Structure formats: structure tokens, C-alpha cells
């Protein structure tokens, strides 16, 4: 392919490559040789891969290149405005008794975080702090299982990410209280944020993690966030990710989970806010008897664009994966679901289930669904289903005969539709909070 490059055309990629050179020294790496080498490798990979183009199958329904044309400000260490406890209270989840981690513009704010009373050996801190104070753990897990070779956004994040949170739960430790990570965007600049989070459950450990993202600005921002999850032998990880950002906040949120034998991983991705939101959740089984449950709910309004992308890699035999994504598209919103289940040769006795159900409420809203199965082993049971439709007329009729208004009846039906997913949430205050939030949006 030959493209003529004139002096005036710069690819959006070039801005990042230049920015990297500007920050490559101490700003990004401190004194770590390990990190410097890794970042160099990542940015080179990014340079080769580039942003996905129009023909990229994985981005078929999400024109990401267009969004990235916008000249966001690339700053690995954006300023953090002071926030009061009162402000934070507005983002609290009622009744949730949790360790609190506050990230503002992707940076860990220790003053606002409440991480005392942690069981022995548990590390819960900012990524940057972890790199300094727990260098051994940091080097062991940071970017270790991440496939940035083939994913430009993971490579980009790896090249730039300075902060985020780091959670380590040692062998056999059960973290009784959940961890609540509050991601706030608070800026008067058009920032391009790249937080990076690392979650490690050592063998036999157990943890519950809730992250919620909010924006406190009308400025256009873009977040390229990456969370790495490692679940050791027999570990249990519950992770819930809430997108509650405002209309100017776009982003790609990638979660990569790596499961050792017998580990059990649950992911709930709940998107209720943002402009263009892409959630990438991928799970890889490293050994047998692993279990993964992926739940998703998305509610698109206004001109929101919500893209949920999941990938479950059954690389070994005897694992179970179960996936349910449900969405409601209102106004002019666009929904996308692309789920892939890959069963590699020899991954016998795999049991995989995948389902996507969506409701399109208006003429201007749209839904694109692409559930995929790619299977190379014969002794497996894999099913997937997708359905797009509207509310059951009979159900509405029944409710109306009981004296409910049309609006109330519809709201109840929509809430019931959402509850299939919401009821799977194992952190009760979070479930109640979301139930109320969703009900409120429908006017139920």
C-alpha cells in the first residue's frame, strides 16, 4: 500500500509518539530500567500497530479513529485539584462498607483514600507508590500477562501509564470488605488519561472490587484505561465496573483477566454514562477448572455510543465460562456487543455459554450484535444466543389491566429486563444502588 504523505498530514498516532519522546526519561520511568525497557517496547509496538482503521473487524461498529482525531492533551501526570470529603460523599454508594481508593485524573490521592485496617500482607495503594515501595510485586505482575503485542491501546497505555491503583491480596487471605475505587475526572483541560490498575489475588485469596467512574467537567476527555487482573490457583475475584461519566467523557476501558487453575472470576460491566464508551473484557484460562462469569448491562441515552467487547480464551481443558450482556438503547444511542469465545485445540470439556439481549426503544437508536464462537476442540458444549426486540406487549397489557399507567408498566418491564443482570451482583449495597439508579432512569 502506498500513501502519499504531505507535510500537513499527521496521523493521530504521531502525536503520541512525539509525546512519548518528550516524557520518556525520568517523568515516565523514574529510575527503573525494567520499566524503561518495557515502555520502549510498548511504544514501538504501538507505532507498528497504529490505531485501528476503518476496516478493522474489532472496531467495525465503533469509528474510534474519528474520536482520536481530536487533539486531546497528552499528559502522564495531570494536575489533581483538591477535593473535599463532602464532594466525595456525592459519589458514595449508600451502605457500602468498603476500603476506599480515590483516583483523580488517573492519579492516586492517598489523603482521600481510606486503606487502613487492611489484613496483613494486603497491598492497596497507587500504582506509582507500589512501583516504589513494592518493587518486587510490581515487577512481577505489571504488564506480565498483558497482550500489548497485538492491541494498540494496551501498548499505548503500557507506554504512558504512570498511576492508577494496585491491589494485592496474599495467599489464602480473604478480603472481607470490598474495595471501592472511585475514578474521578476533574479538569479544565481536554485530557487524554491513561490510568493503569493491577489487581492480584494470590492462590486461595478472595476479593471483591467495585470501581465507579465519574466526571466533574464539561471538557472533552478521553480515558484509555487498563486493568490487569491476576487470579492465582483457587482464588476468587469479583469485579464490578460502573461507568457513570458525563456526556463529554469518552474512553476505552480494557480489563484483562488471567486465571490459574480453579480460579473463579466474575466481572460485571455496567455502563450508564459517557459519550463513546468501549469496554474490553478478556479472560484467559491458564489451567483447568477455571470459571469465569461475565455480566454486562448498558443503558444508552442521548447520543451515547456503548461498545462491549468480550473475549474468552479457553486455552486449557475443563473450564467454564458464562456470559450475559443486556442493553437498552433509547434516544439516538448506539449499542454494540461483540463477544468471542475461543476454544483452542485440546481445550476439551469446555463449557461456554454466551448471551446478548437488547431492546431498541426508538427509531433513531440502533444495536449491533456480533456473538462469535471459534471452536477447535470437539468434546465441548458451547452455545450462544442473541436477541434484539422490544417489550412484550402482553406483559404491558397485563400490568395495565392491573391499573398501572403505560409509563409505569413500561418502566417495570424495563427494570425487570435489567434485573436479569443486576441481580447477579454479589455486593448487596451495590446491587441495591444500581437497581435504584436504573429504576430512576425509567421512572419506575
Amino acid at each position, binding site marked *: *500500500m502506498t500513501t502519499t504523505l504531505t507535510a500537513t498530514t499527521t496521523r493521530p498516532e504521531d502525536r503520541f509518539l512525539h509525546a512519548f519522546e518528550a516524557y520518556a526519561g525520568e517523568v515516565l520511568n523514574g529510575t527503573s530500567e525494567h520499566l524503561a525497557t518495557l515502555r520502549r517496547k510498548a511504544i514501538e509496538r504501538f507505532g507498528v500497530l497504529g490505531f485501528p482503521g476503518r476496516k478493522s*473487524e474489532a472496531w467495525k461498529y465503533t469509528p474510534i479513529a474519528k474520536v482520536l482525531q481530536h487533539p486531546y492533551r497528552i499528559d502522564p501526570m495531570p494536575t489533581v485539584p483538591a477535593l473535599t470529603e463532602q464532594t466525595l460523599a456525592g459519589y458514595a454508594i449508600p451502605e457500602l462498607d468498603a476500603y476506599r481508593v480515590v483516583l483523580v485524573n488517573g492519579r492516586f490521592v492517598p489523603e482521600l483514600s481510606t486503606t487502613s485496617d487492611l489484613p496483613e500482607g494486603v497491598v492497596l495503594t497507587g500504582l506509582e507508590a507500589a512501583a516504589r515501595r513494592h518493587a518486587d510485586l510490581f515487577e512481577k505482575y505489571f504488564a506480565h500477562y498483558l497482550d500489548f503485542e497485538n492491541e494498540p491501546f494496551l501498548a499505548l497505555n503500557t507506554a504512558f501509564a504512570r498511576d492508577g491503583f494496585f491491589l494485592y491480596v496474599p495467599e489464602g487471605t480473604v478480603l472481607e470488605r470490598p474495595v471501592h475505587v472511585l475514578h474521578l475526572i476533574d479538569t479544565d483541560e481536554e485530557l487524554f488519561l491513561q490510568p493503569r490498575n493491577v489487581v492480584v489475588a494470590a492462590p486461595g485469596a478472595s476479593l471483591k472490587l467495585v470501581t465507579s467512574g465519574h466526571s466533574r467537567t464539561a471538557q472533552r476527555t478521553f480515558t484509555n484505561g487498563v486493568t490487569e487482573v491476576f487470579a492465582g490457583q483457587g482464588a476468587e475475584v469479583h469485579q464490578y465496573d460502573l461507568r457513570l461519566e458525563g456526556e463529554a467523557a469518552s474512553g476505552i476501558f480494557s480489563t484483562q483477566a488471567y486465571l490459574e487453575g480453579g480460579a473463579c472470576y466474575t466481572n460485571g460491566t455496567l455502563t450508564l454514562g459517557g459519550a463513546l464508551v468501549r469496554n474490553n473484557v478478556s479472560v484467559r484460562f491458564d489451567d483447568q477448572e477455571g470459571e469465569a462469569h461475565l455480566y454486562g448491562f448498558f443503558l444508552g441515552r442521548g447520543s451515547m455510543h456503548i461498545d462491549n467487547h468480550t473475549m474468552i480464551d479457553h486455552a486449557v481443558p475443563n473450564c467454564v465460562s458464562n456470559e450475559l450482556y443486556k442493553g437498552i438503547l433509547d434516544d439516538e444511542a448506539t449499542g454494540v456487543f461483540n463477544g468471542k469465545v475461543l476454544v483452542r*485445540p*485440546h481445550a*476439551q470439556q469446555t463449557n461456554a455459554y454466551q448471551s446478548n439481549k*437488547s431492546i*431498541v*426503544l*426508538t*427509531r433513531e*437508536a*440502533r*444495536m*449491533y*450484535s*456480533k*456473538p*462469535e*464462537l*471459534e*471452536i*477447535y*476442540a*470437539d*468434546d*465441548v*458444549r*458451547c*452455545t*450462544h*444466543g*442473541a*436477541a*434484539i*426486540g*422490544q417489550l412484550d406487549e402482553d406483559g404491558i397489557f397485563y400490568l395495565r389491566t392491573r391499573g398501572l399507567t403505560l409509563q409505569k408498566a413500561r418502566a417495570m418491564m424495563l427494570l425487570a429486563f435489567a434485573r436479569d443482570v443486576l441481580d447477579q451482583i454479589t455486593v448487596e449495597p451495590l446491587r441495591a444502588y444500581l437497581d435504584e439508579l436504573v429504576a430512576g432512569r425509567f421512572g419506575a
Partner: protein
Amino acid sequence: MSDTAYLQQIAQSDYKYGFETDIEVEKAPPGLSEEVIHYISDRRGEPDWMREWRLRAFRYFMSLLERYEETYPRWAHLKYPDIDFQAISYYAAPQRKPRYKSLDEVDPKILETFRKLGIPLDEQMRLAGVAVDAVMDSVSVATTFKEELAKHGIIFCSMGEAIENYPELVKKYLGSVVPYTDNFFAALNSAVFSDGSFVYVPKGVRCPMELSTYFRINTAGTGQFERTLIIADEGSYVSYLEGCTAPMRDEHQLHAAVVELIALKDAEIKYSTVQNWYPGDAEGKGGVYNFVTKRGICLGENSKISWTQLETGSAITWKYPSVILKGDNSVGEFYSVAFTKGYQQADTGTKMIHLGRNTRSTIISKGIAAGYSNNSYRGLVKVARTADNARNFSQCDSMLLGDKCGAHTFPYLEIENPTAQVEHEATTSKIGEDQIFYCQQRGLSEETAIKLIVNGFCKEVLAQLPMEFAMEAQKLLAIELEGSVG
């Protein structure tokens, strides 16, 4: 596991129709150039408008070829070496003058070929009442029952004859469903298409018999570029059968056919295919490359188009029979069984494009993979903003007979209307040991049990085939599974 050996045997079984008929053949020199287009047009004695049409397509194709890296479709789940489009001969015709009034004039060797394939042309003519337009390579060599069809005003002839005798119909509809700009292979076909069938069923006529064409690829080094056009005028009905087998050979053969169906108001077209071209040998060497563009349009209200296919052959299958549901209340159907073994690769499915109101579509796809083969279903259901109350149901099941093969499902659902109701379901599994055990316990051999289970797995689809074909299809599937001459 005890049934492994048997399944391996299936996977390795040879192509049973591997022989070549020795007929003298006239061929164009290999390569693609403007001269070749003129050569084809000259050979076929085509009018100027047809020549121009070809040249337009040719120029477009050459522009694609120039930007090959960008324009060549690589999205399918298929792996094969690049095709050298300049190494292919684009025209071949049997030496003898190709128009016969009766079977007696047909080259006895051709008739012998059909007999070996178990398709007794003469038997079918007398007993089954099937009019057969047999295509040996690219020129039609036998057309039967023409008079009977003529009584009803039905036109059933080769594309060449249609261009000569019904230019208005051809001009109006050729390329109207699959324009030459549609895709890489449609462009190639439009430039070099050799022959094919043309059917026109007039208003209110129900075609009294199944129309059938047997295709054969028979000359070493020539691709076959069929072009089929079927028009069902208002209120008419036609069922069309297409069946294919090809002799064994070493080099890859490119086949890039285009089929266009047009159903006007209240009309119905049923199109059935059994495809059993040479899939390559046990090492995956040779075999037909099958890149087909099949598309129908339900142009008028209440029209219906139904595709049924049994795909067992070809090294590479790239085929998506589609329906554009333009007329209100129109119906589209796709029933498919794809069986792959050895090193075969199939990426097949359908597209249902809902444009009209109250349109309905059904997709039933069964994929069976054995040996080292890869079998993919790829289907699109699109509901446009104009398509109120559209309804789709898709069911795609895959069965794996072995642990070296792959079965994949890639459905695309694009919904832009709130009144649409679209459902897709897919499963992948293997034959249960309990199922085989049950059959064996009833006194069936393992082989019979597997045949029975596979047959049951495909039944929903095979039942859609016309009677004459259903028998052949079942037999073919059984033979494919057997791995021995049956």
C-alpha cells in the same frame, strides 16, 4: 475412544467422483486482458451491449487488481495461497457445436459422465419430469422439456441464448441484484462469465416442474464463471435445482459464479443447491476454490425467496446466499448443511437485509466438521430503519467429528428499527457417547449410529429440498460419512 477410528476413516475418505471425461476442449490462453474479453464475446457471438457491459466490469476488476492488497477480501476465516488471476484460462468450450435438439446428438462421453455420477439424464427426463439443462464446462449441451415449458410461456435457457433472444429482459435485470461493483469476485465474474442459466416465469404461472442444471467443471486449468439469472414475474412460482460434482485433479480450480434472483409481487423462488466439487486429496492438495455470490431480491410485496444448500465439496467455500427483503411482507429463508472434512475450509452463511415492512426471515444452518477442516457460519441480519415489524429467527448448530477440526459462528446483527424482533441461537457440540451407546444398545453398528445421528442433525434442512434432491442429498451425506464406495 472406539469411534475415533471410524471418524478418522470418514475424514480421510477419498472423493468418490474422481474421474475426468476426455472431451476435446477449446480454451482461451491463460491470463486476463481486454483481448480475452473480446475473445470471450467473439466466441459467444455476443451483441455489442453485452461486450460493453463485460468491458466495464473488466476495467473495474482491473482497478481492483491494481490495488489487490486493499481490495482482496480477506475477512473470511479461510487460509489459502494467493490466486494468480493471470494464470487462469477464462474460457473453455466443448469442441463440438454445442446445441442439440435431442439426447442422441449429445457426446456419448458426456452422457457416460452423468451416468457415473448417478444422474441418469434420460431416466430423469422420462420418469421424474425434470427438465435438465446440463452444463458441461461452460456451454450448455443439453436442454430438455423446453416445449413443455414453452406452453406455459416459461423461458428456461442458457444465458447465451437469453442474451440473443431476450435482450430486453437480460438488460433490465442482469447485474441489478449483484452489480459488478459488488465484490471482487462478482467483478471478475461480470467480466468473464461464460454461461449459465436464465429463467423467466411469466405472470401468474406456477412452473409445473423443478428446473434443474447440473454443473461440471471438467477442463484442467479452467475456472468456471457461471452466471444465473432467475426472474419470477408477479404471482409466479419456480423451484430451481443446482447440483454439482467435479472430477479429480491436482491444481486448484477457481470457481466464481454469480446467481441473481428477482421475485416480483406475490412471486416465489425456491433455489436448491447440492455442491460436491472436488475437495482436494487427503493432504489438502488440489480442490476447487468456490467463491460464489448468490443474492435474491424480493422486489414486490408478498414475495418469497428461499435458499437451500447442501455443501459437501470444494477445498475453499466462500458463499453467502442472501435475500434483500425490499417488498412489504416479503419472506426470506436460508437452509444450509455444510459438511467439511480433510483440509476443507468453508466460510458460508447468508445475509438477510430487511428493508420493507413486515418482512420475515429464517436462517437454519448446520455445520459439520471432520478431519482437519474448518467450518464457519457467517451471517448478517440487517433491519433498516424503514423495516417496521421485521422478524428474524436464526439457528446455527455445529457438530465436531474429531479434535483437529474447527467450527465457528460469526453472526452479525444490525438493528436500526425499534419494532424489529431478531433472535439468534447457536450451539456447538459433538455426537454424544450416550447417543451412540443408545443406538448400539438397540443393535445398530457404530457406523450406522453416527449416520443416523448426523442425518437427524441435518433433517430440518434436508427436508426443505425438493423430493428429487432430498434423496440424492441424503445419499450424498451418507456416502461422505461412510468413507467407502456406496
